[in-house]
């Protein structure tokens, strides 16, 4: 179980880890949407390129902050835990519906179940 220490010296790091994890998840969602729009052909080449550059810049910034605070592993672990939590929850839902575990995989893969 992941504990975020909000009391004591590592409080700032704990909070920053949480914030970075949330931002990463947001950027992931944005990327997913950007790829969808790119593939739909509704954006011009210039728009796609600009979108890609902006997302790349955000990603670089997040990486820099993580590296500065040596939080790469913490953020990755927290996201891993969150993924497992969600995966388990969806699997349970799937079982309850008599469905199979592929629902969870589809969801986590970003397909629309």
């Amino acid at each position, binding site marked *: 179980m992941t504990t975020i220490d909000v009391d004591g010296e590592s409080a700032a790091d704990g909070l920053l880890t949480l914030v970075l994890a949330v931002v990463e998840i947001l950027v992931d969602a944005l990327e997913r949407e950007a*790829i969808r729009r790119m*593939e739909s052909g509704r954006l011009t080449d210039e728009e796609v390129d600009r979108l890609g550059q902006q997302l790349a810049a955000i990603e670089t910034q997040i990486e820099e902050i993580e590296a500065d605070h040596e939080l790469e592993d913490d953020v990755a672990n927290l996201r891993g835990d969150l993924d497992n939590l969600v995966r388990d929850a969806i699997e349970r839902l799937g079982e309850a519906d008599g469905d199979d575990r592929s629902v969870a995989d589809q969801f986590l893969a970003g397909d629309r179940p």
Partner: protein
Amino acid sequence: MTDEDRRATTTAASDHGLDEGRYLYCVVDLRGSDAGRERDAERDVAAFDVAGVDDEPVSIVTSTGERWDSGQTPERVEAGIGAVVHDCDELYDAADPRLLKRWLVQHQRVVDEATAQFDTPIPFQFDTILRGGDAGVGSWLESESETLRRALETVAGLCEYRIVVGRTEPIPTTAIVTEDDELAALESRIDAASEGTAHLLKKQYERQLDSRRRERDRQLVAGLEERLEPLVATLQPLDRRPSVSLADVSSTTKAAGGEESGTADGATDESAKGDEVTDDGEPVCRYAILAADDAIDEVGSLLDSVADRDGITVRFTGPWPPYSFVPAFDEDSDEPPRQTEVP
């Protein structure tokens, strides 16, 4: 004393001790058959001689009110099923992990001995205690007799084994891309694209690669299940991660027993021990199987062929008592699988 009084007394006493408690190890089939031959129940009961948790003397109690203490020779065994118990007046709760481990081993030894003497029993988790003395045990056996009998038939002659398949190395990118036109096409688009577009295409490439990897693991799992099924009596997929692992076990018995009931995935500590996936990479799938002795070599070589794949580890443990195949007991009856109320 009326029933009301008795209930009140036991509830009050429950914080500190148990009134007429019976520590339950397992339920055995006293009159089962060995290879079609009816067993000699009297001889089997007489031969059943083992010390229980904390060296307590172990007895067999039946629904017909019979009771035989360890090593005692019965004149005649009337009942079909019996509960292996010892008398106790409190829960087994120790702060000392060594003592706890000793108890767990003793618990396991009783179940093993019962298996040797009476064929595969329905095992119960450490610290499962029935209230109400021999009469309480008897009426519980009576009320659950159909469930217990069916469960005993299911596990007769079989043992539980655990299979955990894990992935320590992802499938190499080249192995996937060489036979995937879509990914190959993305690769050439990335090479030709401007910087921002290339970034998005790379992300798309990574996502597709991930999804191909997952698809391959799904195929691995489906193939394994298809080949396992004909070899085993029952194949039960489990959650990919164990609900209880030794890492979670603190020094209390509560943690050792886990939060789950004695049903379905209620693995006890002994079986959870073989299940940890810490060094075995990402769990791909986990199973509990019920299988006969003579099927195990073939299951083993099937699993060897899976483990031979790059980046895959397989953990195959057993034989265990069939902890994963303990039936769910009627919640309203006198016996929730753990500490129970007076009927």
